[in-house]
C-alpha cells in the first residue's frame, strides 16, 4: 500500500482515492466506479435507507453511502454474495409497491428498473403485496403515482433542503410507511409545488411525473436503453 497522499482504499481491487469526509460511494463515484444505489444522490447528503449500496468494508457489511472511507480500507462490492443481497432488496421493493413498467412513463429512465437490469433481476421472486395506493392527478402539470414509491425520500429532502417548501413528507410506519403532501386536502394541487422545484426532478422512479410529455423518447433511445446504469454518469437521466 502506498503511503503517499491522498488517502485511498481499494474497491474490488481498484485503488480509489478519497477526500476529507467522503463516504465510500462518493469517492467511488468520483473515480467513475459504479456501486448500485437508489436513495443516494450525489447532490444530497447521504441518507442510507435503501441499502442497495451495501458493500463489504474490511469484511463487514455496511451501506457505502454512509460509511466514511478510511485509508487502506478493503472494499468488496461487485461480488456474488453482495449482488445476491442487492437483488433480493430490489425484489422487496418491486413486490412492496405496484411496479407495472409497461404503463410507466419513467420506464427506460427509471433507476429502480435499470438497477434491476444491472443486477439481472429476472423476477420479483417474493409474493406481491398489491397495495392500494390511489394516484394524485390534481395538479395541472404534475402527476403523483404513489404505486411506484420506494420511500427514498429524495423529494422530501429536495423540497425541504433545496426548495425550502416541505411539499413532501413521509407518514405511517413500517410496511405502512407512505409519502404524503403538504395539503389539508392531501392533494398536490393544494400545495405550493411547482415544476421549477428541485423536488420535481429528483424522483429516481416514476412517482413524480410531468404531464403531457410521457413517452416522448422512443423506446430504444431512452437513457438505459442506450447504456446500462453502471455506465451512465449520475444524474444525467433523460426525462428526470
Amino acid at each position, binding site marked *: 500500500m502506498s503511503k503517499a497522499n491522498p488517502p485511498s482504499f481499494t474497491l474490488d481491487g481498484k485503488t480509489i482515492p478519497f477526500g476529507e469526509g467522503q463516504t465510500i460511494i462518493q469517492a467511488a463515484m468520483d473515480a467513475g466506479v459504479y456501486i448500485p444505489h437508489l436513495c443516494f444522490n450525489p447532490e444530497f447528503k447521504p441518507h442510507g435507507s435503501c441499502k442497495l449500496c451495501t458493500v463489504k468494508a474490511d469484511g463487514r457489511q455496511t451501506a457505502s453511502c454512509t460509511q466514511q472511507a478510511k485509508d487502506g480500507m478493503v472494499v468488496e462490492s461487485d461480488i456474488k454474495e453482495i449482488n445476491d443481497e442487492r437483488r433480493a432488496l430490489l425484489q422487496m421493493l418491486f413486490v412492496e409497491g405496484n411496479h407495472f413498467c409497461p404503463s410507466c412513463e419513467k420506464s427506460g429512465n427509471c433507476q429502480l428498473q435499470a438497477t434491476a437490469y444491472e443486477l439481472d433481476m429476472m423476477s420479483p421472486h417474493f409474493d406481491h403485496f*398489491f397495495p392500494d395506493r390511489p394516484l394524485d392527478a390534481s395538479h395541472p402539470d404534475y402527476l403523483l403515482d404513489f404505486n411506484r414509491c420506494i420511500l427514498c425520500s429524495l423529494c422530501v429532502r429536495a423540497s425541504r433542503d433545496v426548495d425550502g417548501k416541505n411539499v413532501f413528507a413521509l407518514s405511517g410506519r413500517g410496511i405502512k410507511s407512505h409519502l404524503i403532501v403538504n395539503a389539508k386536502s392531501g392533494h398536490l394541487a393544494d400545495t405550493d409545488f411547482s415544476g421549477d422545484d428541485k423536488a420535481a426532478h429528483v424522483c429516481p422512479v416514476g412517482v413524480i411525473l410531468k404531464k403531457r410529455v410521457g413517452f416522448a423518447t422512443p423506446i430504444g433511445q431512452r437513457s438505459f436503453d442506450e447504456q446500462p446504469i453502471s455506465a451512465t454518469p449520475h444524474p444525467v437521466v433523460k426525462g428526470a
Partner: protein
Amino acid sequence: MTAPIKKLKVATTSLAGCFGCHMSFLDIDERLLDLVQLVEFDRSPLTDIKTCGPCDIGIIEGGLCNAENVHVLREFRANCTILIAMGACSVNGGLPAQRNHLSLPVILEEVYHAQHGLVDGFIPNDPELPLPLDKVHPIHEVVKVDYFIPGCPPSGDAIWKVLTDLLAGRQPELGHGLIHYD
C-alpha cells in the same frame, strides 16, 4: 442438463395474457427452423394440442385471473420438468393485475350491472365459465417456477437466448439490451 440425444418436448400456453408473448416467440423468425430441429411441441397454440403430456419444458404466458388458469398452470407444472414464466403478466401479474386494487364485487358490479347502457345486466353464472379469482397473481405465487423471461413482451431475441442457454445446459442470462420489463 446434458446434451439432448432426442428432441426435447416443449409445451406453451397463454393464461391471463394477450398472446403478445407468443407473437414475440414467433419473432425468433427463421431461428424457428433451428429450434424445431431441437424440440418438438406438445400442447401449444402452435400445435393446437389441448392437453399437456410429459414435457421437458413448459412455457407459460400470462398470470392467473381465474380458476381455469389455475388448472392449466397445475397441469403444466405436473407435466413439465422445467417451467418458464414468459412475459410480464406471468412474471408479476402485468396488465390484468392492475385490477388488484379494486375488489372483485366492485368490478363485477361495474361491468355487468352499473355500466351505462346495460339493460337487465346480470353476472354470467354458466358453469362452463371459469370463475375469476379475487386477485390476479403471477404464476410463481401458485406453483414453483424455474426460470423467468421478463418483458412486455420479451423480445424474440430474449426468448431465443433463454431457450438456447437452457438447451445448451447453461444458466440463462439476458444482459443489457435483452433484459427489460416493458
